[in-house]
């Protein structure tokens, strides 16, 4: 018996504030005007995508003591722009990244419940954590959280928010104009939470929203992050975009679900995916090379090398050889507000490896950064992209992808017009939305309403 075809889930990541986004392209539009967000969301909805995804960062990145100026800088408030996008779309899910460190559960729960009401049940929350004092300098709490506590706080934050979402059961509002009873229960929304990080009680003031709770995303890749996702999340925004790495991650995560009493289909794995799309495979390869060079200018290459070297390398020629001095392994990092620098756990070893790689291939600094950086996940003609994406999903490397175009706001248009119809022809992607809520699109059950 052949396995039934899996249905693919697709989402659109609004181009972010890193060098994946090519702002120097003449077609690149505004990253802040609402018209850009509206165009992007409407394209995703036209293509019947599951949802739009917004990242967030609460302090502008710095490097070498200055605000990092080579990438797009500046973005809107997540909740506010998602609420506005609810007005220009009807079905598209609206996923926002919201930090559990520099917020409070009562306020975040109000905002997600409100967004869920105002979008008719389309909200999702990518729960992220941070602990750094650098970001904390913008908030009342400051940089207070030891790194090892960030998941314990995130877990308790989400648990508390869920208690608030569930504090209304959905049947409290009678609004009986004849008898004059608005609320069935004077204690609607009552909650008490006592824990290590939060000690709060009272009444939640937003009635139960269409989805009950927003769809929960998790994005961290650490052991703790994976366990958190297996226990709590509806979907994972992962970074394992190759077939083998994707399959390994997929198997790892799905095997963790049983101990939490969950089925494999209750947690979707949706890696970020970049792409280069052209009429032919050869043209797409050429485009991919060209975009990589746009993404890694000489100046960007030096800055990225600084992530490893942790030193000012501005005196080096990006078209020349790698520095022969070793990285500075001091605690204070030249780059602030960027999670990616933590990837390099042994900078001296990485530096040696890269020097050898560059010498063997006769690569300049810029060549090295281009080659060691992330190549587009999918490169090819519409037919190639449709086939490859389908293969990845059917081979359980993922349940779909969160596509990250490199041009704002039109970077998804061609994919919508040329690739999506091919996936629909294969019978692996919806031709019409079948439900109204994001949970419907993702095939996730609605949380049970606890009778009051």
């Amino acid at each position: 018996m052949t396995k039934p075809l899996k249905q693919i889930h697709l989402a659109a990541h609004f181009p972010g504030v890193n060098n994946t986004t090519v702002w120097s392209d003449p077609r690149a539009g505004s990253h802040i005007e609402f018209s850009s967000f509206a165009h992007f969301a409407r394209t995703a909805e036209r293509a019947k995508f599951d949802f739009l995804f917004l990242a967030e960062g609460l302090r502008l990145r710095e490097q070498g003591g200055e605000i990092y100026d080579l990438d797009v800088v500046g973005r809107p408030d997540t909740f506010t722009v998602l609420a506005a996008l609810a007005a220009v779309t009807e079905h598209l899910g609206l996923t926002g990244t919201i930090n559990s460190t520099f917020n409070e559960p009562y306020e975040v729960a109000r905002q997600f419940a409100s967004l869920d009401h105002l979008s008719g049940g389309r909200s999702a929350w990518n729960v992220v954590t941070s602990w750094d004092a650098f970001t904390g300098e913008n908030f009342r709490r400051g940089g207070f959280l030891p790194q090892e506590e960030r998941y314990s706080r995130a877990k308790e934050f989400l648990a508390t928010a869920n208690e608030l979402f569930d504090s209304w059961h959905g049947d409290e509002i009678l609004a009986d104009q004849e008898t004059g009873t608005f609320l069935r229960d004077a204690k609607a929304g009552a909650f008490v939470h006592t824990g290590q990080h939060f000690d709060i009680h009272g009444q939640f003031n937003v009635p139960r929203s269409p989805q009950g709770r927003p769809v929960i995303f998790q994005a961290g890749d650490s052991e703790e992050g994976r366990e958190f996702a297996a226990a709590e999340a509806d979907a994972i925004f992962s970074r394992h975009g190759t077939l083998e790495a994707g399959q390994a991650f997929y198997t790892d995560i799905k095997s963790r679900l049983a101990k939490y009493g969950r089925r494999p289909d209750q947690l979707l794995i949706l890696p970020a995916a970049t792409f280069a799309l052209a009429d032919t495979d050869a043209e797409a390869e050429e485009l991919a090379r060209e975009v990589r060079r746009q993404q890694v200018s000489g100046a960007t290459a030096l800055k990225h090398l600084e992530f490893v070297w942790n030193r000012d390398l501005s005196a080096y020629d990006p078209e020349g050889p790698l520095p022969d001095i070793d990285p500075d392994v001091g605690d204070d990092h030249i780059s602030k507000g960027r999670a990616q620098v933590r990837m390099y756990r042994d900078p001296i070893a990485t530096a040696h490896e890269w020097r050898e790689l560059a010498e063997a291939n006769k690569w300049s600094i810029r060549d090295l950064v281009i080659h060691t950086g992330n190549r587009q996940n999918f490169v090819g003609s519409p037919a190639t992209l449709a086939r490859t994406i389908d293969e990845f999903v059917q081979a359980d490397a993922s349940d779909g992808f969160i596509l990250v175009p490199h041009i704002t706001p039109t970077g998804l248009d061609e994919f919508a017009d040329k690739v999506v119809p091919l996936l629909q022809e294969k019978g692996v992607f919806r031709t019409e939305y079948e439900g109204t809520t994001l949970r419907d699109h993702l095939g996730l059950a609605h949380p049970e309403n606890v009778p009051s």
Partner: protein
Amino acid sequence: MSPAPSSLHLAVALDGTGWHPASWREPVASPRDLFTAAYWADLVTEAERGLLDFVTIEDGLGLQSSHFLDPDERTDQVRGRLDAVLIASRVAPLTRHIGLVPTVVSTHTEPFHISKAIATLDHVSTGRAGLRVQLTARPNEAAHFGRREIPRIDAYDQPVIHDLFDETADYVEVVRRLWDSWEDDAEIRDTATGRFIDCDKLHYIDFEGRHFSVKGPSITPRPPQGRPIVSALAHDTVPYRLVARAADVGYITPYDADEARAIVAQIRAEQNVAGRAAEPLHLFGDLLVFLDDDPGAATARRARLDALAGEPYTSDAQIFAGTPSQLADLLQELQGAGLSGFRLRPAVAGHDLPAITRGLVPELQRRGVFRRAYEADTLRGLLGLARPANRYTEA
């Protein structure tokens, strides 16, 4: 074309099904729709149809209550609400001219978050955003956050109240500094050097206060209006001082022209003390309105709603029940006492808002004191306020 000098400004305050606690029981009310986007879109588009300057949207960090400080556990009134900033943003793409002024609470929230939220509302609405800042001394709302205890208060002149207002003034200062933390031309997209922004045009705000310190800059570029409108409701000396120090628009609640004159004088004096005498500050009168073409109908409606509520409704603001023409007379009289506009609180949103837009507005237009078309694309433009220079831009 700017409005004639005698023109007055008109805003409407939206709160649930209306300000009378029994408003939800009127046949015209749609209490079951309160938590839908369509409900709010209908109200705001109706206000825009009447060419109003802006709408405010009430909010709070706990359930509504008829008590000053505590929950009331009543089940016969509307309870529960949606986040006002998100309501405003949800309706922004559906409207084109009207200002959107959600309530934000300064006491337990983050000025960094609110600054970028209102900046984003301004981007989404292309220059129509404002905020109405409110503090809370309610112990139950403090318990929703669990970060601090707020001692019980019973009068405005207690130290805890001064402290909450001082914190609110700091909050507004931080919110505004963050709006200015990007200069207008900070985004340069210089392909020659590869620089997206000019770092010299982004600024740390380095605010240090008793309740919070904020480094900056904002993550959101300077909004289209430069600084969205800041407004506050005030009933006493301490809040008058906040209006004088920090607001672009203050809402006050005089019961007659003499009281209006006295409050205006007090706020103007505080404005001088704060060194803001030269800065424009609109003072709007707040009035709760029952509006019908037949004067008897308005008072009868008020009596009917009071009977349904089981007690006469009292308000911090003067309650008016009468015809559009009578209300126009009252507004013009109060205008003569130094008010430049009014924020009307419809007793029943579904009835009194259309009565404002379709009855009062035409009456004011006939008298030549209200616009016949929107004359500006931004809320600052409608209020006759210039786009402010950036404090961090060197001359």
